[in-house]
């Protein structure tokens, strides 16, 4: 299903304290990045339930970015560490069921890493363009 005109829909689940502020910095620094991404702000990565990721896929997302504070930087001390463990298990399950785990990008982006955010989005967009539309 490779299509050169394919513009993937990417949903980014980000935490309010680090990545959302980081994405803000990308904008205020006038760094250009792919417009395929739609950002959804959460209080913390610990709030990002795997059901939300499934919901995003079933509502037409081709790729997902999940991003939050670096370890030890969490506004709520350990939300990102709880989330990290959940992702490890979720990835194991997706892999076992045969869903391409590369469709979900997990990353830490701090409030100072505006440039990294642009890079993450661009890389993910290119990757999903190669993978093609998502089908379950």
């Amino acid at each position, binding site marked *: 299903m490779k299509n050169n005109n394919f513009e993937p829909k990417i949903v980014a689940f980000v935490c309010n304290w680090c990545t959302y502020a980081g994405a803000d910095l990308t904008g205020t620094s006038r760094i250009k990045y792919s417009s395929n991404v739609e950002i959804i702000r959460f209080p913390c990565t610990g709030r990002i339930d*795997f*059901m939300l990721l*499934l*919901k995003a896929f*079933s509502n037409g997302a081709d790729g997902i970015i999940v991003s939050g504070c670096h*370890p030890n930087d969490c506004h709520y001390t*350990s939300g990102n*560490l*709880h989330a*990290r*463990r*959940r*992702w*490890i*298990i*979720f*990835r*194991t*399950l*997706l*892999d*076992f*069921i*045969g*869903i*391409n*785990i590369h469709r979900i*990008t*997990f*990353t*830490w982006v701090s409030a100072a890493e505006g440039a990294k955010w642009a890079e*993450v989005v661009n890389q993910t967009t290119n990757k999903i363009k190669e993978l093609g539309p998502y089908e*379950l």
Partner: protein
Amino acid sequence: MDKINKIATELLATGKVQIIIGYAEGSKGRIRPFFARNEKECEKLIFDERCVQNLAVYLYKEETSRRGQQAIVANISTLRGIIRLTTEKQIKEDDLIAIIASDKEQPFEAHTFEDIENYLSNQTFQLNESDKTLLEQLNAMTPSERRTFWQNEMENCIRCYACRQACPLCYCSQCVVEVNQPQWIPATANRTGNTEWHIMRAMHLAGRCVECGQCGKVCPENIPIHLLPIRLAEEMKILYGSTTGISKDENCEMSTYKHEDTENFIG
């Protein structure tokens, strides 16, 4: 096994318990769960190699618990279910009498959870041969082969939720699939929704599954869905060395974290 009937009759006669959860002969040579409430009904209780159902699922049901003190005929998976339910504070510690039964030895009573833990510490837990082979086969496949395998299987799911009902650890009074605002998972049986349902079930059982395989056994479409939580349990054993349903002091690995958890997939 007459010994089971003897123990059961005595427990009911002395008034120690009001109801005994056990197995009885069903129709067409099948086994059914049986609830003995008086001495006469105790005659029907049996235990043999066909009694594999996990009876722990009845312990917290209103219909049985309201009758008073309970005793339960327990095989290994039931015992693990009991321990896990205690860990999760679903049943009160030492609030039931377990009649530990196996094909190898005579049944005996366990009055405290320490007795159960001691008994379990001497047991080995192994998947049955066919599950083991299938799990190995699946692990050896490429992701796209696994995808084809599961897609074909998920196509058959009729969403009867027997897997949920049979699982001793699926005890939420309201399940996510019964909520329609928001509708997390489509209620109709289609491949996408079915896959989402089984992903959800496995995730909710991660770090809690006692590996009785009951969900797969009750599936009317014979989908090997028990392999999903079992695969996660296997992974968690490797990653965190966790056990489930063996000691009541174990915690749920999904509600905790370690600073040294792997991060190799996070960019």
